[in-house]
């Protein structure tokens, strides 16, 4: 049996948080529910669609204010759809939740009383036990940036499921995140604080979808966030909120050899001007199949961006480079991928390093060494 009183505002917040993980449609019947655990320390709510799970914890007291009054500890699973709607519309600031025989649950607030049929909490999937072995911390906003700068490049095709995830490699207190859909690659490095002494190198692959969800759940702050890697899942620990994601199975391809180490042509550009020029050129290119635009170097440090679609017409634009070094080059690539890459880098100046018209090229920020974007050219003739 379970019984507790809770402040409505906190209850609504927690339920909304965990609702993000509850699937509308699921093959595992119990997952339509939200699990409630009342313990001596407070009340925890859990929602899951089996890929991601969110657990929100409300402590008994916070800043010397009582939030939850636990009369009896226990657990129950309640239908998320109804529970979410009910708590939002309760009349008073205090809510009483009681579980009686046969999972019968009573939600009481003021004069309103709901009796709903719960489900057995024993049936709910077990979240992994947290052993603090592989635990790391980094500032929340850095983690969010790291995710945003890589996750857009994951593959959306299911032919190689492993590429739908972002590969995180841990080595020497540094995290390297790599995402690729085999036409482009995004890489970002970030320093870590870790509690483990040995510097064993290992990697995990986190589904891109989960990371997108995670950025929505995390608040913008520079407070440190802790994350723990377990055998099958990764856990992010924010304040009173736990976010679990399942990992992808399989071996991530070795991407380290893809990145060229030397270049023949270096072009330094104003990021914003270049991005806008590419955007304009893509207006016509978008109609064509691949959204391909052409990039050529001219004399006197100028580059030309052009696109030609026979049925529609053509566009040519000259952009002044900030600096140019090396051989001439004519190369074609996807405008969309280029824009994604430029947006991810988010700096005022970028340098593009080409090795040849048929070779992958890299885009780097001039101030931030930790990010790298790689694009494959498109053969147009």
């Amino acid at each position, binding site marked *: 049996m379970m019984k507790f009183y809770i402040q409505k505002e906190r209850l609504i917040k927690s339920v909304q948080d965990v609702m993000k993980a509850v699937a509308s449609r699921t093959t595992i019947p119990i997952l339509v529910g939200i699990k409630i655990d009342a313990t001596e320390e407070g009340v925890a709510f859990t929602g899951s669609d089996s890929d991601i799970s969110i657990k929100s914890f409300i402590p008994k007291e916070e800043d010397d204010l009582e939030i939850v009054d636990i009369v009896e500890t226990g657990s129950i699973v309640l239908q998320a759809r109804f529970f979410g709607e009910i708590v939002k519309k309760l009349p008073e600031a205090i809510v009483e939740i009681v579980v009686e025989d046969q999972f019968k649950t009573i939600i009481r607030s003021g004069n309103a009383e709901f009796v709903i049929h719960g489900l057995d909490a024993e049936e*709910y999937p077990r979240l992994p036990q947290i052993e603090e072995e592989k635990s790391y911390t980094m500032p929340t906003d850095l983690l969010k940036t790291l995710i945003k700068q890589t996750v857009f490049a994951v593959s959306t095709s*299911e032919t190689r499921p492993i590429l739908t995830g972002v590969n995180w490699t841990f080595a020497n207190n540094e995290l390297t995140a790599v995402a690729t859909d085999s036409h482009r690659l995004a890489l970002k490095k970030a320093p870590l604080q870790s509690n483990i002494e040995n510097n064993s190198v290992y990697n995990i692959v986190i589904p891109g979808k989960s990371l997108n969800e995670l950025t929505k759940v995390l608040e913008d702050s520079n407070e440190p966030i802790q994350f723990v890697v377990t055998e099958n899942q990764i856990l992010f620990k924010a304040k009173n909120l736990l976010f679990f994601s*399942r990992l992808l199975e399989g071996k991530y391809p070795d991407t380290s050899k893809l990145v060229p180490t030397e270049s023949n042509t270096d072009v330094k550009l104003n990021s914003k001007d270049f991005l806008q020029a590419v955007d304009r050129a893509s207006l016509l290119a978008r109609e064509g199949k691949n959204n391909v635009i052409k990039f050529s170097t001219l004399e006197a440090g100028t580059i030309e961006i052009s696109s030609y679609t026979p049925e529609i017409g053509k566009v040519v634009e000259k952009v002044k480079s900030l600096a140019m070094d090396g051989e001439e080059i004519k190369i074609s690539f996807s405008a969309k991928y280029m824009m994604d890459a430029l947006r991810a880098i988010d700096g005022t100046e970028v340098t593009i390093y080409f090795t040849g018209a048929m070779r992958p090229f890299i885009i780097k920020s001039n101030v931030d060494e930790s990010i790298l974007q790689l694009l494959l050219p498109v053969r147009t003739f």
Partner: protein
Amino acid sequence: MENTWNELYNLQPTVMKLIKNALIKDRIAHAYLFEGMRGTGKKEIGLYFAKALFCLNLKDGFQPCEQCIHCQRINHGNHPDLHIVEPDGASIKKEQIHLLQQEFSKKGMESSQKFYMLIGADQMTTNAANSLLKFLEEPNQKTTAILITENIQKILPTIYSRCQHVSFKPLSKNEMIRLLVNKGVKPEKAPLYAHLTNNVEEALEMKEDEWFLQAQKIVLKLYEILSKNQLMDALLFLHSDWLSHFKERSQIDTGLDMLLYIYKDLLYIQLDSDDMLVYPDQKNDWQKNALQVSKEKLANQILAILETKKRLQSNVNGPLLMEQLLIKLQEGSNFV
């Protein structure tokens, strides 16, 4: 849903031995193809197998405890690492296989092993079957697949060749009767259910089905009229009671089956094989009739019913077909 080792062993001794050995010797194939008739316990044994793989307190290396959280949740369909795919409508769609594929590209939710069961694997669309092939071919570690089918001929050869086959034998009638009696069916009624279906659950449903109980009465009544050599009465009864009750083709078929068993019983009474009777409770009433009919006549009557059953499958008029049958059955006894 809970089935003990002994129950399942009685049902399918060979299969259970195979599973037991696989578990004890830890030689579990990555994919099994369970094939056999409806009601032979394929799904139950599949679930038993799953429980044995996930159970925390396995007894003697092959018997799941039915108590731990894994066993409990498998019984209730709530285990996060067990996936059961059943035909959505008439077939298993590509999207269903697609979801399964997505599921299996990830690591387990709780454990590092995964188990999936495809019920009606023959009902996969070709598209679905081809998507399945890919991950039957390259299974991830510790994944066990069970494909269940009633029509092994309909399984794509490419899938067939990638699974270990397990044949489920149909239940013997005696075994079926014994099971039904255990479940509280009256011993004199059990043989009829055992003859009509090979599935215990289905038989128990029949026992509760109002339509079916009524059908039984009508069939017996029809025979009673026929046995009195009153063709006109029989035809009248056909129109007043029978036709309004047996409407669908499958219902007529069941009715004919029940009628057929009556004539078979008469033959058995003549042969003194009492233990083969389908309606043992009617034996005393029918004894007299049985002695008045020659074996040859009975054989002809049985043949007439079988012929009718066959013609039912083609596009014929139900009432006419039944009238014709009654006349044939009647003619037989007229010449006695």
